[in-house]
């Protein structure tokens, strides 16, 4: 057992000190009926590193890796190039094998990273403060809705129809149990968002308006009028950003009056990983900070007056407040936050702006090319690196047929909105810096074939 250092001689010597006859004797408190007398049945015995590696590699080999084919999937998870140094650095044992920084004197590395991360996120979102991260964008979105209820003492949230349907689903699941009322519907296949309808629906019972920016169809809407309408009614505007890179090209939600901004951070530094672990980002205005969920890192000094960092405002959290806590969350996505922060440091202001511009330009060119495919039209007026194509047939079938041709061509709206027949022909296509001209040609030709 390569991970177990004790030898039989060690065990015997230790049992001697303890005064027990055997390791089994230490389990005397377990009722005999529940104590197995041998290994758990139905499972294999231990295996060598090489054998395990082989087993897992065989499973990995049954998946179509994004980097091995023309790849255009987005809808909340994006393929970007992550610089090699990011993965190298996050694997340093002092980061990888550290715990939550409860002993700040020997966790300044993690804590300073979190302080830098919070600053990066707050600035990207145009907000005052960000926390040390949540599980992912969808759970951060729900936490924001609950926070808005605490702040406004109202229980009705208006969710834009452009909000990621899985985010809606997560919020809907939770709301069933908490009694929050959520108003939402599926989007229409139009170039315009539902901003006007949302504004019209705001009333004095509304706790928050939740708007994704850019939205699930890739559309971009000015949040300013929604923020103004929400504030006039005493409600909060929650902006949801699933593609943080977009904020290198478009105005931040904070500039447009959002009170809480949440989102997914996976795009920066964290790979696709079949959906997780990802990185929930959460930021708000300073006056709301005590209603915020999750860990916060703050600056202070040590006994010698040197600058240092600690976890702070912990009285909001479950280990102190127990049933009165702002959330039951007890972890953050520490290592993913580290990866995000390193990638963001490598990019810097200039790199992030340039990378965003590159994504947008490639997406514009790709959209133009794909709209030339017979029968295909582009839905969007405005978009960043993701847009919706309307096909002349069910997009799920098209996506599957493309996959058979080794092209991962986009996310079909049928997959995201089962049962919404009006959306069945929509295909959401993401074009990042990883997409080449050849990839776009391959998709255009593949679409031409599968639609013929």
């Amino acid at each position, binding site marked *: 057992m390569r991970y177990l250092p004790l030898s039989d001689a060690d065990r015997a010597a230790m049992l001697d000190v303890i005064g027990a006859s055997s390791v089994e004797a230490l389990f005397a408190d377990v009722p005999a009926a529940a104590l197995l007398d041998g290994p758990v049945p139905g499972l294999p015995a231990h295996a060598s590193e090489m054998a395990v590696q082989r087993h897992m590699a065989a499973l990995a080999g049954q998946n179509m890796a994004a980097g091995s084919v023309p790849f255009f999937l987005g809808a909340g998870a994006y393929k970007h190039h992550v610089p090699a140094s990011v993965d190298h650095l996050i694997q340093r044992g002092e980061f990888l094998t550290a715990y939550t920084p409860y002993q700040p004197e020997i966790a300044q590395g993690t804590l300073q990273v979190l302080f830098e991360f919070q600053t990066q996120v707050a600035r990207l979102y145009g907000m005052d403060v960000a926390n040390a991260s949540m599980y992912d964008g969808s759970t951060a979105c729900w936490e924001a809705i609950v926070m808005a209820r605490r702040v406004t003492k109202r229980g009705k949230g208006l969710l834009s129809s452009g909000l990621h349907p899985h985010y809606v689903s997560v919020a809907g699941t939770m709301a069933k149990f908490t009694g929050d009322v959520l108003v939402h519907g599926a989007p229409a296949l139009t170039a315009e968002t539902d901003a006007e309808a949302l504004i019209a629906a705001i009333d004095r019972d509304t706790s928050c308006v939740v708007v994704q920016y850019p939205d699930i169809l890739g559309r971009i809407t000015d949040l300013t009028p929604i923020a103004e309408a929400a504030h006039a009614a005493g409600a909060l505007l929650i902006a949801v950003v699933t593609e943080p890179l977009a904020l290198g090209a478009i105005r931040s939600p904070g500039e447009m009056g959002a009170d809480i901004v949440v989102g997914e951070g996976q795009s920066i530094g964290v790979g696709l990983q079949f959906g997780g672990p990802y990185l929930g980002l959460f930021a708000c205005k300073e006056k709301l900070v*005590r209603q915020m969920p999750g860990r916060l890192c703050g600056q202070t000094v040590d006994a010698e007056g040197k600058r240092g960092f600690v976890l702070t405002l*912990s*009285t909001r959290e479950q280990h*102190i*407040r127990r049933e*009165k806590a702002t959330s039951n969350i007890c972890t953050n996505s520490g290592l993913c936050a580290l990866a995000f922060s390193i990638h963001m440091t490598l990019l810097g202001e200039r790199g992030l702006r340039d990378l965003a511009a590159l994504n947008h330009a490639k997406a514009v060119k790709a959209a133009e090319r794909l709209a030339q495919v017979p029968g295909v039209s582009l839905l969007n007026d405005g978009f960043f690196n993701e847009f919706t194509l309307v096909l002349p047939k069910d997009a799920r079938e098209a996506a599957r047929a493309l996959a058979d041709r080794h092209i991962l061509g986009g996310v079909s709206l049928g997959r995201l909105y089962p049962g919404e027949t009006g959306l069945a022909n929509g295909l959401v296509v993401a074009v990042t810096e990883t997409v080449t001209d050849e990839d776009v040609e391959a998709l255009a030709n593949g679409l031409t074939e599968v639609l013929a």
Partner: protein
Amino acid sequence: MSRYFTDEHEWIDVSGDIATVGITDYAQEQLGDIVFVELPAEGKVFAKGDDAAVVESVKAASDVYAPISGEVVEANGALEDEPALVNSDAEEDGWFFKLRLTDTSELDELMDEAAYKEFVANL
């Protein structure tokens, strides 16, 4: 003006129908460095025993209960910027909120200073 105490370590100064409420010096010492005080909004109406305020140290959050029934007429805004006032001057400048009393007979159940001192001495 007369000062009353509760076994929840609050003091109450009553002047006419207005009661000023704070936590006792003994309480602030037990809580340690106070870092935040959450105060009730003006106009809020409490029944005796309701959660009225929260006082936080770094590692604990404690509820402050309304020692008597009444309507909040003022909260001590100074505590928002300077929560340390509770530590330095718990029983004067570190007051929490003022209530307009609804039932002065509730005062009869409270302790005077001597009784509170004895209560604390026996803790």
